[in-house]
């Protein structure tokens, strides 16, 4: 992909770009968090005000999806959400790279979610009960089949989680890179500058149209996608956690019902 994607400005020798920019995103988040909590005031202002608003949004989301006790998972969900959002938005700034446009970063996030929700489920319910629930509410002979299917579906979750984020980010970058290539000196603009008749008639207006399309449509769309993908990642994390917790509650409700 080096053919169409220009390298970012800051490159550390021997370290892949996505790791460098992951560090930068981490640094920004840490600095903002420290700035927000350094002088906590009862009546917040400035950075603290903003971060409280963000945390409030996460609280609302957690209450809505997980319900009571959902705020326990704010550190996981909030960190993932803010990191992914910042990473996605970094990809829109020319000269910076988006860490989430690399499969390694997204796979790391997805694997964290995968192991976390299993650990939450096992902790809530115990290993045997948690595994038992994979067999689902089907009659006895079908249970092994159901178990295998359920295990495969659980294994597909980190795959789809990581590939969705990576695909959206990398796809958008390739799209914008192709548009920049198209309207650059190798494309329409170069054609217009040759001074040929076709270049003047098609190349010059084409450059303007392509630039207007990128500025007016693609960039807003990419910003929307950046927010949306971060939201979807958080939402799915919460839904998976809810699934692990609900199985526990479901089992607890089932046990007395079985005695009747």
């Amino acid at each position: 992909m080096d053919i169409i994607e220009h390298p970012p400005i800051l490159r550390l020798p021997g370290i892949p770009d996505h790791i460098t920019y992951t560090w930068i995103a981490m640094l920004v988040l840490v600095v903002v968090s420290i700035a927000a909590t350094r002088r906590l005031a009862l009546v917040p202002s400035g950075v603290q005000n903003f971060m409280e608003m963000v945390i409030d949004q996460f609280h609302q989301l957690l209450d809505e999806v997980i319900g009571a006790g959902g705020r326990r998972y704010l550190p996981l969900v909030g960190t993932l959400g803010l990191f992914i959002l910042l990473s996605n938005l970094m990809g829109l700034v020319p000269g910076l790279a988006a860490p989430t446009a690399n499969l390694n970063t997204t796979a790391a996030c997805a694997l964290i979610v995968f192991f976390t929700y299993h650990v939450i489920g096992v902790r809530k319910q115990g290993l045997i009960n948690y595994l038992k629930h994979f067999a689902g509410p089907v009659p006895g002979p079908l249970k092994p089949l159901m178990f295998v299917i359920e295990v495969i579906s659980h294994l597909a979750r980190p795959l789809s989680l990581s590939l969705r984020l990576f695909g959206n980010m990398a796809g958008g970058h390739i799209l914008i890179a192709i548009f920049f290539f198209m309207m650059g000196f190798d494309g329409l603009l170069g054609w217009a500058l040759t001074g040929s008749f076709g270049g003047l008639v098609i190349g010059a207006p084409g450059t303007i149209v392509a630039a207007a399309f990128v500025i007016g449509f693609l960039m807003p769309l990419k910003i929307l996608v950046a927010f949306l993908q971060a939201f979807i990642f958080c939402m799915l994390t919460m839904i998976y956690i809810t699934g692990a917790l609900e199985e526990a509650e479901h089992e607890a409700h089932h046990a007395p019902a079985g005695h009747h």
Partner: protein
Amino acid sequence: MRRTLMFALMAVLAVPGVALAQAAAAGATDWVKPAAALAAGLGFGLAAGLCGLGQGRAAGSAVDAMARQPGNTNRIQTAMILGLAFIESLVLFVFVIAVILLFVKS
């Protein structure tokens, strides 16, 4: 019958090998790149088109539901976005495969 099947299977398994061997013998694997481009384009077009149909249905139903129940707009919207993400992720699998086909040197 079984022998025919076995033979067919062996033929299917052997043909790419033979072709590869011939190409390698000729010193060129020219057919790989055009075939990869064709597969990437056709596959991604098919996936994107069908995803458009699916997402159109999902979004249409969501708008329908919102028009009927304006009070529940937020929850419907969340469910719709999640559904769209799931539909979209299938296309993104194809996208990743297409990128692999196009950019990974074989």
